[in-house]
């Protein structure tokens, strides 16, 4: 959209060299602002890698990725990150079980069935869910979701993976529903009308024409939502607990990678200690997981995008 005026003969040159110098100066100021974003990425990578190098000079990568006991601060120390990854995966899979069916069905309803007035009201209402601070979800899990789970399963403790997964699932419903709805609304009506012309029902048009045509956008929304679930911090810290363990039981407390980082963040771990360094190793693991999912999501969207005129 920008209009490039720097090329060619500048007819204002004779009269306003001050203006031109100012113009160039401002260009550099704006460029530096844009550069800050690049420096942020470099800074994140540098900080995480540097801290991790210190950590892995004392802990072997094999111990980190293959052993199953995580206790970097409390004796006897051990450095197997798998329980944290397992906890994170439990929350992620659990929240996906909530958000993917609900979000997809919501998107189909909003895009194919709801009249425009209803859609204009419901879509922003659902998006409020994404704007609620995550600490509020943590409170909601403790004071509302966990007591409900406890009425069905009395042995459930105050902190349990299920409550964490459910609130994170609720939190990411709007990511799935809004992004999928955008993808479905972008499917041209010609495709729908062609299917109706062949005698398809509305159900068949929705599930066999619209969803496949919008599939790349829908899948991309799933991956983005899951990546958000992996990085979710306060809700799972409050709801799911601080007990790093590998368990298949969602009613038990667990600890995610993010909750571990909070645990260290609020305790008095001295700078330079192995506990402090472990923050960056876990942070790098988390960053690598979310970054690869985000890039994967972008790749799917561009690779499998159906272009419509």
């Amino acid at each position, binding site marked *: *959209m920008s209009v490039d005026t720097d090329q060619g003969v500048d007819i204002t040159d004779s009269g306003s060299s001050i203006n031109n110098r100012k113009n160039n100066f401002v260009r550099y100021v704006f*460029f530096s602002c844009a550069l800050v*974003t690049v420096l942020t990425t470099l800074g994140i990578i540098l900080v995480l890698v540097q801290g991790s190098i210190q950590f892995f000079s004392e802990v072997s990568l094999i111990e980190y990725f293959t052993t199953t006991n995580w206790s970097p601060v409390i004796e006897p120390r051990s450095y197997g990150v798998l329980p944290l990854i397992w906890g994170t995966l439990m929350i992620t899979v659990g929240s996906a079980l909530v958000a993917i069916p609900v979000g997809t069905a919501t998107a189909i*309803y909003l895009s194919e069935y709801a009249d425009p007035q209803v859609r204009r009201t419901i879509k922003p209402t659902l998006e409020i869910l994404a704007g609620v601070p995550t600490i509020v979800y943590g409170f909601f899990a403790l004071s509302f979701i966990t007591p409900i789970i406890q009425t069905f399963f009395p042995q459930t403790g105050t902190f349990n993976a299920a409550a964490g997964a459910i609130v994170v699932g609720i939190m990411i419903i709007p990511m799935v529903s809004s992004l999928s709805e955008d993808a479905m609304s972008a499917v041209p009506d010609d495709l729908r009308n062609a299917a109706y012309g062949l005698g398809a029902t509305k159900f068949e048009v929705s599930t066999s024409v619209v969803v496949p045509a919008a599939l790349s956008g829908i899948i991309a929304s799933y991956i983005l939502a899951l990546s958000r679930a992996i*990085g979710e911090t306060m809700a799972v810290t409050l709801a799911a607990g601080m007990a790093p363990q590998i368990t298949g039981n969602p009613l038990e407390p667990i600890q995610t990678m993010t909750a571990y980082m909070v645990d260290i963040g609020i305790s008095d771990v001295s700078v330079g200690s192995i506990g402090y360094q472990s923050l960056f190793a876990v942070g790098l693991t988390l960053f690598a997981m979310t970054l690869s999912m985000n890039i994967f999501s972008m790749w799917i969207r561009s690779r499998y995008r159906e272009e419509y005129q």
Partner: protein
Amino acid sequence: MSTDTTTPFSDATGDIERKRRIGRAFVAICFASTLVGIVALVALIADVLYESWGWVTWEFLTYPPSQSVDYFLNGTRGAGMYPAIVGSIFLIALTAVFTIFLGVGAAVYLEEYAPENRLKSFIEANIANLAGVPSIVYGLLGLAIFVRAMQLGASLIAGALTLTLLILPIVIVSTQEALRAVPDSQRQAAYGVGATQWQVTRDVVLPRALPGIMTGTILSLSRAIGETAPILMVGAATSMFVAPDGLRSAFSAMPMMIFEWATLPQAEFQHVAAAGIVVLLTILLLMNAIAIFIRNKYDPRS
């Protein structure tokens, strides 16, 4: 190969009825799913209001916190989240200053100045990626760079700089959209009377895009004010008894206080946490209302 010629579609009617039923069931499922999100939102708000009922008092807004839950009750000595409210307001005000400068600067560069080349697409792809980085990772960045390397300590300014980096990607993208909405004819007209690019940007583009920029920035700031993880990593205090009084001052913030109260074992503190949430959500609601007001009032399209 049906031999029945009198009713040619007789075998299809049962099929149509079956399809109708599938269709109705499908709409019902989709509609019910839509309600799940709405019901969850209503339950969340109702739960917070119910738990906080009677605990949000004038004292709660104007007194420092207390270890004793009794002081939070109405008609006692009084305890609340005053230092955290002030901390959050200072934090967001500082963040706003940094974000507006950096965010608008970066967006103006990308939309108005940058040539369409690899550097521009690299910067934009990088911004899209940054938006997906978990907020706690920004906390680690702030801890290592601002708190340790730059020796700012666990201070208000370290927290504000961390939050600035966190919301910068969102602010840049929304500002870019606002700049893109300014018609090119207006730029051309200004160039036509001899304005330099900076003059066009300052006197034509920015004033016209201002409402859009404001809306996007306020919405991003309302995200920042609810963030706990980044400021927790930077070292915001869980309980502060005095409000911060300078850039290098230690600070608490509303989400930190709520986190502290929610983790305390005494059941009554759940009500205090809920009261804190009500205050936080009210401020969020106000910020969003202002953003929507600005959009509706100044948006040339509406």
